[in-house]
């Protein structure tokens, strides 16, 4: 009987956390104004999101052991993220184009790539993350690493210009009218590789 009670308590705590994560995600979408709901409720949604975040310990300092314990449990159980895939709307996808400048004046265009389709899916997932404002501090270092992966295969490249942007596919009507996808640059970096070459 004690074992049953322990299981029952775990069940309640576990699904309380699952619910908190799920609803924090939904409230966040509403608070951002990306849903069909009227903007009047944005503030309430923000408050609700904060309450859910509080329940998950996210309002505590990063070094707080309770926050860390909850985060560890969430990751261990695979419940750290909500389930709002492709919701409320399907976002644009993202592209990273690398312009490779050679010493002899040649210019080539390349994109980071992997061998298998499963890994390619993950690479696209990484690019979509880079567009997220939360990943803004990491953008340069990640793009630099991606550029480096291309440079390793072409050591005679002198400079790489990395342009990252969002690609919006046309709607059905626009597609029927002959319109194709449009590219909107978000940021770009120039990486010079001369220093590295000298080493």
């Amino acid at each position, binding site marked *: 009987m004690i074992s049953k009670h322990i299981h029952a308590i775990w069940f309640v705590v576990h699904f309380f956390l699952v619910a908190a994560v799920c609803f924090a995600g939904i409230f966040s979408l509403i608070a951002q104004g990306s849903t069909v709901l009227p903007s009047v409720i944005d503030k309430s949604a923000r408050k609700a999101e904060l309450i859910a975040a509080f329940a998950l310990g996210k309002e505590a300092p990063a070094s707080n052991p309770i926050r860390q314990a909850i985060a560890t449990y969430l990751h261990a159980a695979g419940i750290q993220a909500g389930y709002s895939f492709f919701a409320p709307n399907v976002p644009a996808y993202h592209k990273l184009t690398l312009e490779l400048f050679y010493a002899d004046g040649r210019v080539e265009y390349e994109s980071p790539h992997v061998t298998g389709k499963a890994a390619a899916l993950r690479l696209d997932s990484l690019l979509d993350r880079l567009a997220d404002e939360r990943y803004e501090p*990491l953008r340069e270092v990640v793009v630099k690493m991606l550029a*480096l992966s291309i440079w390793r295969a072409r050591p005679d490249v002198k400079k790489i210009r990395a342009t990252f942007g969002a690609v919006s596919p046309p709607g059905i009507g626009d597609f029927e009218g002959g319109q194709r996808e449009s590219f909107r640059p978000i940021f770009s970096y120039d990486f010079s590789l001369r220093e590295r070459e000298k080493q």
Partner: protein
Amino acid sequence: MTQGTRTSTALTRRWSAELMAFLFPAETDNWLTALRIGLGLQVAVYALFLKSDWHYLFASTGSGLVNRVLGEAITSFDSPLIPTLGWLVAVGGYLNIGEDAVLSIAWACLLCMGLLLLGGLFSRPAAIIGWFLHLCAAESGGLFAYGADNFMTTGLFYLMLSPLPDRYSLDYRLLKVQLGSQQLLGFWRRVLQVHMCFVYFAGGLAKALGSGWWDGSNLWRSLTRPPFNLVSPDILVRFKYGLPILGISICLIELGYPFFIWIRKTRFFWLVCILAIHAAIGLAMGLYLFALVMIVLNVAAFGIGDPSLTGVRRPPPQGSVRALQVG
């Protein structure tokens, strides 16, 4: 004791007893067999799909795509206690095993755990090690992760806690390991069932809040968006009037899942619809791992036998509390 106190105490006892009856139905281990074999297949396919890119994705030295250490640093912002491949590499360092070798061993072990789960040999250690290795990879490659990783972690997490082995496993057939109690089997199936209800309700609600799922434009965007654009847009255009119907259907099926999956008369229909959605996602969008794990979790939760029929009815607990009827 006042009349009011007595009533509330009786109500609390009744609810508590009903909750326990709901959480601990006696259950066969058929669903556990499905979960074990399904997740074993999933782990093996995951490892095989990533074979050619494993080192490229997870190396921390100059040969990798994005330094693994970066992903691990992001994970450690959440908590430094979350396992990563860096832990294994550190252990390898003490044993004078290089990073490349550790990554190869981790990959080979993950594949072995998948195969062991498929056969049901050393089921629990295989589930624990499989969960741990997959978690390490998912967290180290957090920047590359997507939905399938979380569902795999959740599935393996529940599998390793479930009363393994099942009667179809080699553990039981060859090693004569004792089977788990029927009530614990029922409990862990309930956990999986309730989890799936949360998944679809949250997913359906979030979709229903977007205008694009009501007019079909989100379905169009999903299917024409690289790398999911396996079906030609010219073919999709021919079915443009069907897209809003499909989009609305997806919202309703997901939102209705936590209600209609428990009702005996609608369970089969709802399950078939959900499985069809996942099969279509796998085939039309190339999300094979995601489709497979969702199909496995759904089949284990609601597809093997009828939860309300396979649950062996027990006499009501003392006090003649009515067991909660499901379905």
